[in-house]
């Protein structure tokens, strides 16, 4: 079997007595769309924070493309090829959607730090940014300040910014968070088409099961920080432990 793009091994995060992430292991293959689901408080976003270096793990390791990224700083991890979105929309509100995407694209450019000139840097960032906007159906609002976009468009802009970085692994943290039913349906369609075309490896945290079943190749289920199922969608749907975690058991 080919080496997995992302290897998470026994990753654990403890906050005093509270175990937020409990020995999570998973392997994500290149080209796979992997969803991570679980009830509230299952540790999904914390897992993302651990993988992307925002929070240091208590123990365990994360390997990307064969190399260890466990304790790297967030900006260093991004440079390795992982780009992520946030559950709470985080954009540059006074900059236009295009400028948001450009800044994101510039982040992976070799000469992003140029203190003068930089026309070539800007040109390449602009191209990547506009391309990402188009893939996510945002070209028509490219010039609007990001803070003035609809909530749905803002969520998509987050994804576009991550995409503008041409990552090898895209981490999406609840992309449909806070969207209305219609907005969700639209966003999911856009994402589905885009993922079909882009053939990119994705790690997706989602609450909405419809979204998950529409987009994911494989699902990992977390419950109270630990993995209780890791399988294809049909199998997970039928899994008794998963059903119990979501539906029953007041603890």
């Amino acid at each position, binding site marked *: 079997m080919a080496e997995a793009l992302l290897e998470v091994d026994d990753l654990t995060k403890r906050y005093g007595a509270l175990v937020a992430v409990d020995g999570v292991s998973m392997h994500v293959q290149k080209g796979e769309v992997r969803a991570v689901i679980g009830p509230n408080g299952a540790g999904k976003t914390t897992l993302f924070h651990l993988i*992307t270096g*925002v929070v240091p793990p208590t123990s365990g390791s994360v390997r990307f493309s064969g190399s260890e990224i466990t304790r790297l*700083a*967030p*900006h*260093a991890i*991004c*440079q390795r090829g992982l*780009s*992520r979105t*946030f559950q709470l929309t*985080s*954009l*540059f*509100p*006074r*900059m*236009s959607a*295009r*400028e948001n995407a*450009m*800044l*994101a694209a*510039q*982040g*992976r*450019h070799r*000469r*992003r*730090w*140029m*203190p*003068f*000139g*930089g026309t070539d*840097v*800007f040109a390449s*960032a602009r191209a990547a940014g506009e391309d990402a906007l188009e893939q996510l159906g945002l070209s028509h609002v490219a*010039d*609007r*300040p990001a803070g003035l976009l609809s909530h749905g468009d803002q969520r998509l802009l987050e994804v576009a*910014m991550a995409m503008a*970085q041409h990552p090898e692994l895209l981490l999406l943290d609840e992309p449909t968070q806070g969207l209305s039913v219609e907005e969700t349906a639209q966003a999911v369609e856009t994402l589905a088409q885009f993922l079909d075309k882009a053939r990119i490896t994705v790690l997706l945290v989602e609450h909405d099961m419809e979204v998950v079943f529409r987009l994911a190749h494989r699902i990992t289920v977390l419950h109270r920080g630990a993995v209780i199922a890791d399988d294809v969608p049909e199998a997970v749907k039928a899994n008794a432990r998963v059903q119990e975690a979501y539906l029953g058991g007041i603890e």
Partner: protein
Amino acid sequence: MQKPNPLPALGGLAVVCLLIAAPFGLPVFAMTLLTELVILGLFAMSLDLMVGYANLVSFGHAAAYGLGAYASGYMLLNSSMPLPVVVLLAALLTGGVAIGVGWVCTLATGVSFSMLTLAFAQLLYAIAFKWTSVTGGSDGLAGIPRRAGPFSITIFTSKTGFYYFALTCLIGAYFMCRALVRSPFGLVLRGIRENEAKTLVLGYNTRLYKITVIAIAYALGGLAGALYAPFAGFANTELLFWLLSGQALIMVIVGGQGTLIGPILGAAFFMLLEHQLSSYTEAWALFFGLIFIAFVLFAPEGIWGLARRAFARARAPTGARHG
């Protein structure tokens, strides 16, 4: 898409021409004021780089000014190096020290960052008092000469020559800053200003960018101080006092932060108050502080920010807004 507007460039050119022609038309005392304005404008503009473009509010920018002044004063008094060399060396020294200061201060953010910059300036202030052998203690350094340039170019010893040198420094610094904020580096600063957490996650080592902009801002502030010492002929602890840091911040805010030109206007406004009002009342600095509070409350974009908005509205009366 609008055609690029030629007016700002033409306006700028006109101002520069006036500044170059000034010594031929203005009386001596006015030239002295103008030279002081050039130096103070450079000082304020350097602070704008930190405050207006990277949201790094410094309460201790006098540290740059004082350090530059003492460095150039000391070198002019104790060596025979030509003036331009001394001034540039003093600026570089200040920038070098600022790398350390920036490294330390960026360990914190927000208010804590600001307090650290103040603490550092206070530290320098105390050192200046104690290190009498180098700084002259509470008396400071006096009798600082305006030395000739290299190759016996004596142009700087005259007031006019020195004015042109200071003006060159200001204009050079302006274009340098302008290039910086329009570069990829400048775009990153904008990102840091609007959402530092996101900028970090996008792959930028934000702390390095902050330290760099701090070093450049302090170096330019040190350049201003280094010009001040031979201009005034002395350097003392007043140049490191927190009130001066405060006045610089006021010049930036009142003039218009994030515009480079605004702070220079702020400096002009400050000097206007100082020289005009001081004949009527000793409380001119107090008025300056009150005006500052008024601007923060009612016109946070400052004089130049207001002017720019007015120009933009005049050009697009239909209300069509650019992106």
